[in-house]
């Protein structure tokens, strides 16, 4: 028994992504129509060409009807998936497997979230009835647990830690300013970031990803069919997923400076893709920067920086647009926004643009490398799900 991966068996041949933001004038239905039709056009197909659909949404609807009704699908199969903030990636992963299995020729993975209709700050969601002992912490608070733990372990004082977190937010805002589809399209001064009102622990408002509405979609076919649709397909090199035992809050050996699920999913993805030195082999990465300390820790968990050094690398600009390994060149969750079900596919959309050389020139990465990585996380430190994909512009 083993995991085999589906390297180079399937390819993305078209993508769509709505602008993310506060779309007071659009519902989930509208955004699904926009993203799906943009992806059809991108792949040069019609809706009738799609054999099956995978819809990712955390809370903007239940069942396949959430998609089949607005798109007026012709009695096609639709799977509706949810895997917390990794929902969009989960839709993509399962759609890829369906094509690789031979069950379908052409499929669509599509994700959507309509967050701004709730009237609340941050994320909300309903839970099954409980005994009332579950943690009531908000998402920023659970991720902020990383900051003092990381600083304590690696000997950073509070000021340096704040500087590192601020640098990460500043970088992602700077990238997002170059992205017409991003929720926040302005550079933000470091002083503004560092001085923003506190939300949880050392995290201010600018350390948190944008709460937004949006949708993104991909058309997926067998690799051998890809050139029928495009000259520049994106081949799927690796898909991995790790759902942890959620013991971080139970196990004293967990120190809140790492995501074990991310390490497991990264190791699996690198094995599938044949990567042994991600830092030098990958052209760019889109990672789950839900909060600034998350991106910091991810740089080590994904093998982009040695343990205990990501903070220095972040300060040095390693992960800047013009750095050694650009991370979140589209602005990331931080400034592109985070409509839950759409985010995983939005990350792939940036790989689609960058690796095909179609990003706007001001943020197009100049690299001879052909691989991109997306990393999508759901849950909280110590209890999460993690997805890693590697995609590439060339076979082999």
């Amino acid at each position, binding site marked *: 028994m083993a995991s085999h991966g589906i390297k180079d068996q399937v390819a993305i041949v078209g993508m769509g992504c709505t602008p993310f933001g506060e779309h007071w004038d659009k519902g989930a239905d509208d955004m699904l129509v926009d993203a799906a039709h943009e992806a059809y056009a991108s792949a040069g197909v019609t809706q009738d060409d799609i054999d099956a659909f995978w819809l990712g949404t955390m809370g903007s609807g239940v069942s396949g009807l959430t998609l089949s009704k607005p798109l007026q699908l012709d009695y096609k199969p639709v799977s509706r998936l949810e895997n917390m903030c990794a929902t969009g990636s989960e839709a993509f992963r399962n759609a890829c497997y369906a094509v690789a299995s031979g069950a379908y020729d052409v499929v669509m993975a599509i994700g959507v979230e309509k967050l701004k209709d709730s*009237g*609340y*700050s*941050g994320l*909300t969601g*309903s*839970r099954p*009835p*409980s*005994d*009332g*002992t579950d*943690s*009531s*912490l*908000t998402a*920023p*608070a*659970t991720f*902020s*647990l990383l*900051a*003092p*733990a990381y600083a*304590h372990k690696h000997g950073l004082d509070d000021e340096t830690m704040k500087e590192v977190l601020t640098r990460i937010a500043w970088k992602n805002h700077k990238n997002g300013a170059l992205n017409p589809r991003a929720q926040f399209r302005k550079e933000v001064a470091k002083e503004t970031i560092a001085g923003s*009102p*506190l*939300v*949880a*622990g050392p995290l201010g408002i600018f350390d948190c990803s944008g709460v937004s509405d949006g949708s993104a979609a991909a058309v997926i076919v067998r690799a051998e069919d890809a050139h029928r649709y495009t000259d520049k397909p994106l081949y799927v090199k690796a898909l991995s997923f790790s759902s942890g*035992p959620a*013991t971080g*809050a*139970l*196990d*004293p050996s*967990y*120190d*809140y400076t790492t995501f074990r699920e991310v390490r497991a999913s990264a190791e699996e993805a690198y094995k599938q893709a044949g990567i042994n030195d991600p830092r030098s082999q990958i052209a760019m990465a889109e990672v789950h920067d839900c909060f600034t300390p998350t991106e910091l820790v991810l740089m080590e968990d994904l093998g982009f920086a040695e343990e205990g050094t990501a903070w220095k690398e972040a300060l040095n600009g390693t992960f800047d647009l013009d750095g050694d390994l650009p991370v979140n060149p589209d602005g990331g969750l931080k400034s592109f926004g985070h409509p839950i079900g759409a985010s995983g596919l939005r990350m792939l959309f940036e790989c689609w643009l960058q690796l095909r050389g179609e990003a706007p020139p001001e943020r197009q990465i100049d690299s001879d490398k052909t691989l991109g990585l997306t990393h999508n996380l759901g849950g909280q430190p*110590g209890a999460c799900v993690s997805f890693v994909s590697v995609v590439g512009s060339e076979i082999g």
Partner: protein
Amino acid sequence: MRGIIGYGTYVPYYRLDRSKITAAMGAGGGRGHRAVASYDEDTTTMGVEAARNALETSSATPSSIWFATANPAYLDKTNATAIQAALDLPQETWAVDAGGAARSAEAAVRGAMGTTGISMAVVSDLRTGNPTSNDESGGGDAAAALLFGDDEDAPVIAQALGVAASTAEFLDRYRLPGESASRIWEERFGEQAYLTLANDAIERACKEANVGLEDVDKVIIAGLHARAVRGLARIAGDKLVDDLTTQIGNPGTAQLPLLLASALDQAAPGETILCVHLADGAYAAVLQTTPAIADYTPSATVASQIENGSDNLDYNLYLTWRGFLDREPPRRPDPDRPGAPPAFRSEDWKYAFVGSRDRSSGAIHLPPMRVSMDGGAVDDMERVRMADVPATIATFTVDYLAFSLSPPTVAVVIDFDGGGRFQAEMTDVDPDEVKIGDRVQMTFRRLFTAEGIHNYFWKARPLSK
């Protein structure tokens, strides 16, 4: 011989400086402090803490809990059941409430004393009054527990030589159900009624005890009628036990057992103590300490708890906690009410803070798990109660966004001495003071109330010095 075999008290962490009332309102207030239950405490949780303190120094397992309060967390539903559950007492424990009036303290104490087996009276009160009222500034929040048994259960440290009571129907103080403040008749009327009733009860109690007032070493006078208490204090002279109202206020129902505990904290063998309670009549008990009291050490004296309190509580926060000021809620959904069946299924965890320990690996699971996180053994766990185990903070945060009656929420990840980790809310702490490595202990609290359901669970608080 039957008598008191142990006791415990609980004075909450916060104090309100009465001058802050005067400063804010231009009226009310006065000198000294009152004890204030935190936003996450009620009479049930304070009762649990007092009972834990009583049992901490004893190996006794009470077979009955007699809980009394004038401010019950629930009506219709028994509150003593949550105390029984939080103490991890067995199902055969008989846990009952005596509620509504300050006088119900006498029912709990006399009931526990008069029954058979090891029994515990738990008396708790949370006193409220209209802003600027005497009840507001003069009240206090506290709880006390008295453990009764026979010599074969544990050494009796004090026994009752004589007990008597008198009763009269008259309007002294009264409150309709649901009201946040009591109404009080002109004080001079009550004073006359009480002095007559008290002298009658004291005379009969002394007669039964076969002691004269001159033989008494200490006199405790408890009661919410301040003028009558002062009037009666003349009989005590310098034998009067400090009623602590300057430091913590008058904790109503809990005052009688709290002052008795305070006296016992300092008592020598062979002391005779007259306890008088003025509440819709009078109750008098003549107690005598035994030689065993010399060897009895309470887990925390009343004086030490008063000493360790914080007087850094602002009046506006006090008003908010007691529901006299409504602040703008966060733009977040209200918390979900706990479900009755899930809470019932997890009673050991939710109320008694009992986790599971893997018999093969020793790994402790909080909450309890059926499958071990260390080795994967299935259904090979034993129960392990962690409520009394100290712990150390591994990491922490301050959540400014989460729903709380008193934001911000402090959250800590704590590692227990001897194994086991839990992510807890922290209480009774200044958010700016929390550090990795700080020592904490668990405390039973009310997380929130949703749709009429009090959500009780455990939090961390700084370890008592």
